[in-house]
């Protein structure tokens, strides 16, 4: 059974819908990332799970119990904020102690001086101190416990925020863009640290980010959110290989997927008016979009393919190179991006014309509504290029 379950969750701000019937289920101990462009509603979703914001329709269940009406503190969750939200007037130790003090001590016991006068309360404070030290050791903060947040570096502050969330051993761990204020090198190492920490503690985690790299490297499953809806949910590879929506295809993957205009004539998909890809299974709109990943496009001799491109720009990235090609005769189409090995012997002078070989089996075809279109790839390379050059007048 799912540990966290969202059913049909909806929310709007002043009649602008920000969440449209969200369904999401997260298994116990699972790490799920919610990824999407800014403004897609992912942070609102997290705040609703935390109970910081109210939703208008739908249900939230944590281990099978509806928590919709419960305040945040009763939901047994912990949250890490993008700004870290550390209490600036408290030391690191006091920051970490705060959730424990609020949970374990009654209002009377929290009063100043009570700790000095009552042995039982003093014992509780000693327990809290022990827990703090344990948690601090977990994220290597032991030597910084008496500092104020202002005296810490960004990475250290981030670890304090993590520790404060973990110190209570919550059953659900919510992270809202926790790495976006760190520099690139620190972000990469913290990514690994968080994943390892999560695996070790086995705490169910929902991680919100706009960074697809974070989502793909950290999470077991990814929910891609667009315009207040979860458009696709699955493992990183599945979403990369089979994006079910044009927006997902564009959002996931570096570099961005190349998109080419396509059309359907007599049940056959044509790309850029020059090459056939396959037969559509169902009747589809006449206009389609054809997407190719950079590594799926092959370069060939210009005379052997129906599509050709002019080399405009090369990005050398060390382990690979990205070649930007402008489609011959179609300068208004965004350039094709082709990934090649950096040592490929080829002429990289701008203006060089290359043939573009598109394997129908690697094509992603999207209908006018943006949904993925199933089609049956044409197997014969010979039939697809024969006699189509003349049809290039689109």
């Amino acid at each position, binding site marked *: 059974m799912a540990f966290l379950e969202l059913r049909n969750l909806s929310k709007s701000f002043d009649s602008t819908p920000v969440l449209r019937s969200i369904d999401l289920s997260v298994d116990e101990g699972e790490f799920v990332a919610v990824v999407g462009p800014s403004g897609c509603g992912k942070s609102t979703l997290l705040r609703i799970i935390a109970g910081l914001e109210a939703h208008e329709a739908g249900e939230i269940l944590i281990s099978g119990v509806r928590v919709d009406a419960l305040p945040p503190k009763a939901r047994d969750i912990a949250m890490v904020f993008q700004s870290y939200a550390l209490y600036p007037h408290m030391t690191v130790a006091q920051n970490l102690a705060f*959730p424990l003090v609020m949970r374990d001590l009654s209002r009377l016991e929290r009063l100043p001086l009570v700790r000095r006068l009552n042995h039982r309360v003093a014992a509780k404070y000693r327990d809290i101190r022990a827990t703090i030290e344990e948690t601090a050791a977990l994220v290597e903060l032991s030597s910084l416990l008496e500092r104020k947040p*202002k005296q810490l570096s960004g990475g250290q502050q981030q670890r304090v925020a993590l520790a404060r969330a973990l110190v209570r051993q919550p059953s659900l761990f919510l992270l809202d863009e926790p790495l976006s204020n760190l520099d690139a090198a620190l972000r990469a190492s913290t990514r690994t640290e968080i994943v390892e920490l999560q695996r070790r503690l086995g705490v169910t985690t929902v991680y919100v980010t706009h960074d697809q790299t974070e989502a793909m490297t950290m999470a077991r499953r990814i929910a891609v959110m667009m315009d207040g809806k979860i458009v696709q949910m699955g493992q990183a590879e599945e979403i990369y290989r089979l994006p079910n929506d044009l927006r997902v295809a564009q959002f996931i993957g570096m570099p961005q997927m190349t998109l080419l205009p396509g059309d359907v004539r007599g049940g056959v998909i044509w790309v850029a008016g020059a090459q056939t890809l396959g037969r559509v299974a169902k009747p589809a709109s006449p206009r389609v979009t054809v997407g190719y990943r950079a590594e799926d496009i092959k370069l060939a001799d210009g005379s052997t393919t129906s599509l050709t491109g002019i080399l405009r720009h090369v990005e050398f990235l060390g382990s690979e190179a990205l070649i930007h090609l402008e489609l011959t005769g179609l300068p208004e189409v965004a350039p094709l991006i082709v990934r090649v090995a950096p040592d490929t012997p080829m002429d990289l002078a701008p203006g060089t014309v290359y043939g573009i070989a598109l394997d129908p089996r690697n094509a992603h075809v999207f209908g006018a509504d943006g949904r993925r279109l199933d089609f049956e790839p044409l197997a014969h390379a010979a039939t697809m290029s024969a006699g189509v050059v003349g049809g290039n007048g689109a």
Partner: protein
Amino acid sequence: MTADALPANSLVPSSRRSQAGIAWLFVAPLLIGLFLFLLLPSLGVVILSFSDWKLGEKNIAFYGLANYMELFTDPVFWNSATNTALYCLFVTPISVALGVWLAVLIESSRLGRVFFRSACFLPVVSTTVAMAIVWEFLLHPTLGPVNALLVLIGIPAQRFLSDAALVLPTLAAYGIWENAGYVMVLVMAGLKTIPSDLYSAASVDGADRPWERFWTITWPMLGPTMVFVVIIILLRVVRVFETVAALTQGGPHRASEVILYTIYLEGFNYFRIGYASALTVVFLLVMLILMLIKFRLLDRAAHYQ
């Protein structure tokens, strides 16, 4: 453009000089004003405080420290100083507390925020003397609505402004009414600087009752603002004058006479400018000390940012 295209090095200092000249030109009106209307009169007051000059007299003689000696044995001065101190002791903490309460209350409610904010700020921007006349009517022993209300609930009518025991508390209440709105506006500005994420974190961490949120987030985060507010209000309150002049003229029997009013009486009623100057110098010194405390505390309190 490359670095070679820049003008020769020797030009830089002179252009910097002319820039400094322009800067002084812009600051000049303010400096001249400060000198003419603040520093020069202050210096004059200090000099006059060592003289026996009376307003309108042609003779002026060096009087040494005689004015200051008189001051420290003058029961009128000590009475005014005590009244002023009592007034500050009442008005400052209560108007600060009330202002903070109003600010938090109004900021947390959605309804009528603009209305309540304006209503509470009204006493700050309205003319004190005009408002004093309204209050004089409200507190009138026989015609005033306040007394009518008291009688209605079974309390005998009070002579708020002519009863020696009541006059200072009444003026203090007026001062609170006058200053709480000012505190409120300053605190509201301070509240705006508290990141809302802190409140979210606090409610996730278990502090979601209004009182807990106030003590764990709002109050500590307002620290620097509060130091500023307390000193500013104290400086305003110490200078109380118009209310006294308009409502009681220091009466009855000097029960509501404050320092500034004593200075005014000595200088412009009894024409003892030398003595009034000595009073003013003492008052200025107290204000100066308050200012120094303010800057010292503000430096220390600004450690959050």
